[in-house]
């Protein structure tokens, strides 16, 4: 189970070349047997090189980066890849393995890079090649994941900071820890030992996203609420927390961070856990589908293309609906216009819009919605002359944010801490966002 990495920047059009080069870059990163040597990824298995298949694969499927299948079979290998932040992370496999195992691991690798370097970009990886090697060395042994918890990794290899690199260059001390992180041996491998803070704080963000498909007439085809609770815990020692909800029954399907005691949840519907240090995702959940989802915005739209004419009309108005006294902010409307659209000439009553004539993406940054004056975007669409008018109107993707509100009505009841003497500062924040929110027109 074997997951090395290759990477590339991808732009439309430049894709073949980019992939060709990128795979090469990756090949160069690989060890004598065709893989990143520091990954020790079953080197013997990949002795025969991956051939030039990756490139042809990329060429075949290059039409759309998004459509490169995650699992590709080549004569001697299987390539499992993920695409993130304009990079492909490719793992070369020779034998049967659950594909999700590899995919999940590659995402962890990308997460770790993100965590360490602040961004997961080609430049960041190239700049930190040594740390990348050291990290992968710890994360993987002979293709089997070793340490993937960021708390443990950070004890083993300290993330690069300017200060530390200066200090290290003077004192000659290293970024690499020389003892086994204690977490790795305990049954709470996610928490590092000896955590000390002067201000002990625990913050929870309840973030809910509304996934919805609204049809032409404005009725809801499909809507559901997905939520996560992200935590930022800065508590000394070994705190044992339990978080309870006013209305836990709302949560229909939940997935947990490994720190959560499942049995406690089953019996009492209480989240009881010893938290990792720092930021992590505590749970993600889905609100049971019986509850009707209150859609906080409505959209009035009329988009039409005239037959045998090189223009069309575009008129979109967006307004609040059942906003529960909160303002809807951060509203953005994104539209993938049909290919025949050449340009758009619009006037917004609020915010600003951009239209990219290459990707045909219209983005309207609305901002806050005030019910007194509904924002709208009107104007003309220039079409390629002679081309048949588009069959279908494009659908609108809408983003918004409502602070201080969990749309499902989920409420945290209390947070208790056991095992430590001090009094932590506790905070809960609620946000509702649009997830995959699509309006068909």
């Amino acid at each position, binding site marked *: 189970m074997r997951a090395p990495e290759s990477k590339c920047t991808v732009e439309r059009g430049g894709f073949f070349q980019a992939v060709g080069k990128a795979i090469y870059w990756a090949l160069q990163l690989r060890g004598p047997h*065709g893989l990143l040597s520091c990954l020790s990824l079953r080197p013997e298995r990949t002795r025969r090189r991956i051939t030039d298949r990756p490139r042809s694969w990329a060429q075949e499927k290059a039409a759309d980066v998004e459509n490169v299948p995650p699992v590709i079979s080549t004569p001697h290998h299987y390539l499992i890849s993920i695409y993130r932040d304009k990079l492909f992370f490719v793992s070369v496999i020779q034998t049967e393995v659950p594909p999700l195992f590899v995919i999940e691991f590659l995402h962890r690798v990308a997460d770790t890079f993100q965590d360490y370097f602040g961004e997961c970009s080609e430049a960041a990886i190239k700049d930190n090649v040594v740390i990348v090697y050291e990290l992968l060395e710890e994360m993987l042994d002979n293709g089997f994941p070793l340490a993937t918890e960021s708390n443990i990794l950070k004890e083993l290899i300290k993330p690069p900071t300017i200060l530390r690199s200066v200090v290290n260059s003077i004192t000659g001390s290293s970024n690499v820890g020389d003892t086994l992180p*204690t*977490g790795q*041996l305990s049954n709470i491998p996610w928490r590092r*030992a000896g955590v000390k803070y002067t201000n002990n704080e625990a913050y929870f963000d309840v973030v809910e996203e509304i996934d919805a498909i609204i049809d032409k007439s404005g009725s809801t085809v499909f809507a559901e609420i997905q939520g996560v609770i992200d935590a930022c815990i800065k508590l000394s020692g*070994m705190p044992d927390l339990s978080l309870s909800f006013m209305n836990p029954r709302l949560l229909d399907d939940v*997935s947990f961070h490994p720190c959560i005691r499942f049995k406690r949840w089953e019996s009492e519907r209480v989240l009881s856990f010893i938290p990792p240090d720092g930021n992590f995702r505590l749970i*993600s959940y889905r609100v049971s589908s019986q509850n009707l989802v209150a859609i906080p915005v409505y959209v009035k739209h009329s988009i039409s293309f005239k037959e045998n004419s090189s223009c069309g009309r575009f008129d979109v108005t967006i307004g609040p609906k059942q906003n529960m006294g909160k303002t809807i902010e951060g509203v953005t409307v994104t539209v993938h216009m049909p290919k025949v659209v050449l340009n758009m000439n619009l006037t917004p009553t609020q915010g600003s819009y951009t239209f990219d004539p290459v990707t045909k993406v219209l983005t309207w940054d609305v901002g806050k919605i005030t019910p007194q004056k509904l924002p709208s975007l009107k104007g003309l669409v220039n079409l390629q002359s002679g081309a048949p008018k588009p069959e279908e109107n494009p659908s609108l993707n809408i983003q918004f944010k409502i602070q201080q509100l969990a749309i499902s009505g989920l409420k945290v009841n209390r947070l208790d801490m056991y095992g*430590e003497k001090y009094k932590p500062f506790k905070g809960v924040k609620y946000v509702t966002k649009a997830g995959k929110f*699509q309006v068909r027109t």
Partner: protein
Amino acid sequence: MSSNSFAYNEQSGGGEATELGQEATSTISPSGAFGLFSSDLKKNEDLKQMLESNKDSAKLDAMKRIVGMIAKGKNASELFPAVVKNVASKNIEIKKLVYVYLVRYAEEQQDLALLSISTFQRALKDPNQLIRASALRVLSSIRVPIIVPIMMLAIKEAAADLSPYVRKNAAHAIQKLYSLDPEQKEMLIEVIEKLLKDKSILVAGSVVMAFEEVCPDRIDLIHKNYRKLCNLLVDVEEWGQVVIIHMLTRYARTQFVSPWREDDGLEDNEKSFYDSDDEQKEKTDKRKKPYTMDPDHRLLIRNTKPLLQSRNAAVVMAVAQLYWHISPKSEAGIISKSLVRLLRSNREVQYIVLQNIATMSIQRKGMFEPYLKSFYVRSTDPTMIKTLKLEILTNLANEANISTLLREFQTYVKSQDKQFAAATIQTIGRCATNISEVTDTCLSGLVCLLSNRDEIVVAESVVVIKKLLQMQPAQHGEIIKHMAKLLDSITVPVARASILWLIGENCERVPKIAPDVLRKMAKSFTSEDDLVKLQILNLGAKLYLTNSKQTKLLTQYILNLGKYDQNYDIRDRTRFIRQLIVPNEKSGALSKYAKKIFLAQKPAPLLESPFKDRDHFQLGTLSHTLNAKAAGYLELSNWPEVAPDPSVRNVEVIDLAKEWTPAGKAKNENPTKKFYSESEEEEDSSDSSSDSGSESGSESGEEDEEGDSSEDSSEDSSSEPESESGHQSDTENRRAAKRNSKTKGKGDSKDGKKENEKSKTSDSSNAESSSVEESSSDSESESESESESESRKVTKEKEKKAKQDRNRLATDASLLDLDDFNPVSTPVALPTPALSPSLIADLEGLNLSTSSSVISVWIPSADLRATHQATLQQHPHVK
């Protein structure tokens, strides 16, 4: 092609020349190749100097640059001797980077690599478990066949190490050694067997991985560990969980009888399992018939359920496939919710999960029906996700939801993504055939699409309509006429061919149009696609047979054209048709039946899901995703007719002790035990707070698990004879006791039933209580100062355990694993006697060991250089 072979050389690291060439080419671009090339050499020179320097910072800098070179694909192999010297560096970062370098180049420079071996051997005895583990990792990653015996020895030692972390690495090393030298298999299996008995959650995943890799067919090794693995599963790290679950799925399919038997009576069976009182009579009546699930089977299903809540998609998928393959069908429903949850994840996870759902939804529609809307397509989904969702929607379509679905499909047909629109049309066709109520609606909808502007949509509609009409030989003259008109405008070959075929097949229904179509086609014959040409020939033949008056000449004209066509298929077909339909003296009996042959009733095509035949692959596997057997795919066997003896999973205490003692004895001879305990102490003092904390936490956790009040008696009785190693096998005792009661129960089935129930409930309550107590044990661990006294308190309460606990405290080891505290199995550095004679010979051949055959562990570092020289002399060609 040329670039390919070029890169191959680069990869295999074979040709020095190509390497150099590569260097040169890579440096050409900035300025003159020659100058830079030489400066490159110089650079290596200064790297060498830096590596020789006394300052760690300079060495570190050099190593970082070398790793950078490796990353860029430059050849850094000439630095090998300089780098290898630093393998003994005290600085851990330098050491690690040297390891990186070694793993990369050792196989190329085998002789030089040997220089580092002694350092690793010393590191294998290092008091720091991290260093021991990483030394083992690198040692086993150096693919130099000559050190196989050393690796074997190191693995054996590490497998008995005190630190579970080192043992985990030993499990990983097993696979590496196996791939280097498969002949070691037998010995490695022994190690695997031993490590499988390990109770540490750290080791479990890795050793099962090694098992799957080395000896997946030795299912017998699992028996005794089956229950332990099931119980540990929740606590194992997530990657291990995936591997274990997959292995246990296979295991369950060989060891238990199918829970799917008599699907109709399934509910009854389930009931009988739960409320025994009512069903008892029934059970005695038909003793053999009703199915009762083996408690071990139940254990697995029950213990994996919480993992559906994992944040790791791979774990969720693994549990889902376990439920799919081994749980009773009525229980598999719970996985759908979790799988649907995964659809919120990134596109790669979606892709795999949707594929698996597609396979599942063919066989058991009901499972995913409630989530129908979760599979609705968004215009922003990538095409591959869209088509998979469409596939699932089709599988889920039934009379009740088809109207909603068709409305949804209408939106899809208009999609800008034409590939997806075409797939939607196919889907509509499939729905139309599967659900007879909507066939006409679908057909008229598809006919409307014929006037669509987009050619791909029209073409796809034609193809689908053709299939539909074929299935329904009713009167559809109008549609055919409409399609005949399309021939003038449509250019997609498949669509044209379909129309022609359709007209030919129904030529008697459209007697006026058909000949005219043939006329038009005869005109354009030469410019048509091969596919269309074949259909023109067919059409001609059919018309010739039904309406020879009007079309005789036309057909002959077409046949003449076909005779000289470039494509041999078409020439062949022409010849065949001519012989068959045109009567001449040579034509035999067949031509009499020509009409019957050409216008025979053709079976309608079946519109089937492309996922139909994927179900023979285990879900969640690579093979399933590819729909082809991947190398190393392990077949999921069919349920056995009769369950193999379930008692093999009983863990008998005495047996266990016997198995353990010989190994222990061999090692007990060794006096270096002190060495280890010292080391552990040292470590403890360095970070004692955390260690003791975690220790007490984990231990008390395990005690909770074992301290099952309801079965204390059995535990006591069985642990008495085994005061030493009793502790480790407490859990086994408990289970053995349970099993005893069960087997007793089997004798008289009435009681046996009850017993089963009891043990089940007690078991679950046990698990429950342990989890509740877990929190308390955790809180214990927080206050370090209290922890020891705390755990002592516990031990006082449990007299039987007190001895061992004190024992444990005395050794003061900071480990999870109970085995470690068992003196019998205390591993110690292996001295001379443990070496096999052949190995000694090998080592002497290597000239690595100086005086003793303890593999040069004790060479003082000053001697290192001397040894190097010795080795170099041994292999003069290295110079």
